[in-house]
């Protein structure tokens, strides 16, 4: 997959005081065909976010004027539900919890890989765009039943274990998007530490095997250097 093609386009607001980090974010997001505005302070960011509609906001936790937590708080208090990706040098689990509790939708610690940041922005964008979650997801004859928590290829029951179901669901819901191992680990297992390289890989391998045994075409692609992506090759 080429980094310049993106499943969705949208307007992104980057609130970041550090110039080099901001440049990096803006460059990466622009390369994903997003329209990007940047604010250097919390007040400026808040004014921009309030005046024009953005699809996603990336927000530095440590700003020179207002704490990032307060920026999210102010947005949510004005009933602005734009998804916010908080970016912070504070990696502590407690800080993550505080960030999410204040109204952030995702949390990324510095230093981060820019492709991971872009992947998270895309997931937020898509989640926001899907007004109602469908009860069934389909792709190439593969059907994911979100009520029965199972998947079928044609008439064949894939007989997925709970973890395998959650993994497939996360991949299918974000079909066409690159998902990093950390994102998968966070979404499926709910933990926020480094799962190591192999751990997620063997789970993906297991799922691939089940799909293959059912005769399903290969739908889970490996994105070199980044992670995985669901969708036809």
């Amino acid at each position, binding site marked *: 997959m080429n980094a310049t093609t993106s499943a969705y386009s949208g307007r992104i607001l980057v609130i970041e005081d550090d110039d080099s980090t901001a440049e990096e974010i803006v460059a990466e997001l622009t390369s994903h065909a997003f329209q990007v505005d940047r604010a250097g302070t919390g007040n400026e960011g808040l004014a921009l976010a309030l005046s024009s509609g953005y699809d996603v906001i990336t927000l530095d936790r440590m700003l020179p004027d207002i704490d990032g937590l307060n920026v999210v708080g102010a947005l949510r208090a004005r009933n602005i539900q734009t998804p916010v990706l908080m970016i912070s040098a504070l990696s502590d689990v407690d800080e993550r919890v505080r960030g999410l509790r204040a109204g952030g939708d995702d949390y990324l610690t510095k*230093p981060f890989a820019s*492709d991971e940041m872009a992947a998270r922005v895309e997931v937020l964008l898509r989640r926001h765009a899907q007004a109602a979650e469908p009860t069934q997801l389909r792709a190439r004859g593969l059907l994911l039943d979100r009520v029965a928590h199972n998947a079928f290829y044609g008439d064949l029951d894939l007989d997925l*274990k709970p*973890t395998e179901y959650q993994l497939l669901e996360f991949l299918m819901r974000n079909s066409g998007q690159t998902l990093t191992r950390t994102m998968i680990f966070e979404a499926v*297992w709910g*933990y926020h530490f480094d799962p190591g390289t192999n*751990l997620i890989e063997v*789970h993906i391998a297991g799922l691939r095997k089940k799909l293959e045994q059912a005769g399903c075409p290969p739908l889970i692609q490996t994105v070199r250097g980044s992670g995985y992506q669901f969708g036809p090759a």
Partner: protein
Amino acid sequence: MTSRPARPSEGSAALFSELWRITSFRLTALYGGLFALAVVCLFALIYWQTARYQNQQVDQILRNQAHVFSSATSDQLDDDIAYEIARDIRHISFFGVFAADGRPLAGNLARVPHELVLNGKPQALPVERNADLFAQALEIRALGQTLDNGNVLVVARDVAVLEQIRQSLLRGCFLIAAVILLLGVLGGVFYSLPAVRHIRGIDRAAQRIADGDYSQRLPLGLRNRELDVLAQIVNAMLDETERLMGEVKTASDNIAHDLRTPLTRLRASIYRTQQSLEDSSPHHAALNHALTQTDLLLARFRALSRISEIESKRRRAGFSPTPLQPILRKLVGLYEPLANQGEVRLTLGAGADAIVDCDGELLFEAIGNLLDNAIKFTPAGGVIRVELDIDETGPVISVADSGPGIPSDLRKSVLQRFYRADEARNVPGSGLGLSLVDAIVRLHGFDFVLDEASEGGVRARILCRQQRPTQ
């Protein structure tokens, strides 16, 4: 982890032995004892003086009576004696006039008392030998003399009053001595309890410092000056130690932190280069390798930062009573495919659940690291057993494998950052996993023990000792 000395119980015997170690208590008790002794001596002196004075008085009375009677005529003598006996309503005076052959002529004595020397001087009489004469008397002083007409005059007096005084003096003496001793001990307790409390505070703080919390300081008391001087010296030493340790840690943390940013940029540029290549490009393999290596480096720095983050974490905000079995089930589910890939069987022992006050996410991470290690080091065909037991110290989580094990002399070293046993050189890893486990376990106040599994490999155990409340 250090072993803790048995905490002094709150029993009174234990409290007393604890008090006895306090100088001020011992001094107060000693002074109390000495003062009580002095009071006893004082009372003895008073008694002795009183007894002497009383005897002198009695003797004077006896001499006066003898003088009056001996100078009276025979007829007058009978009347005088009768008068004196009538006047003695307390019945403490005894008189007798006897003929030279011992026959009683007048008075209320039937015979001359035994062992009375007729020398005209007052003397003590042995009461037991003259019990028939002085029925209820306790102590008798008597005077006997031969009259001019050859008769014998005996004047005696019961000095029981003196004995009563002695008794009440003795009672008073013991009573006061007891009161003084009691006051001494109470005073000692009163003055020493703050010291005992202070020492307990020092004990607690020292225990926490020994457990690795270098931010603790010894408490200063209110009036235990000599303890405070020592505590201040120790505190100053701790300040310096903490500063030095902080510097070392900050230096290594800064290195880790500062290198992460350029490494991330390096990774980004490798990544971008790779993305810009045609799919058929022959450079993919080399770039992939570079990317993998950079990821490993980043993972190592992340782990290092994570350890220092956990070590510096003092808050227990993430702590809540958490059941352990669901965590273990989830972990086994997460690691089972990885184990199966290496043809290792991963089993979870059936057992009772236990609820522990912990940060579930951190505990998950710690046990996950243990499983990761076990899977790495267990050869194909091996087994890894995860178990939850409950022993007298609390719940025990154990991860045992059938791998090569860790020699007992290296078990301490493997907890050090970046330590890798020689046998582990060819196994990918950072050497930080067990340090991270140790940091998490220490944060919880649990114990982390490495020993040998019955399968021959490593048995790593987390002893979830239930916390005594710390304030």
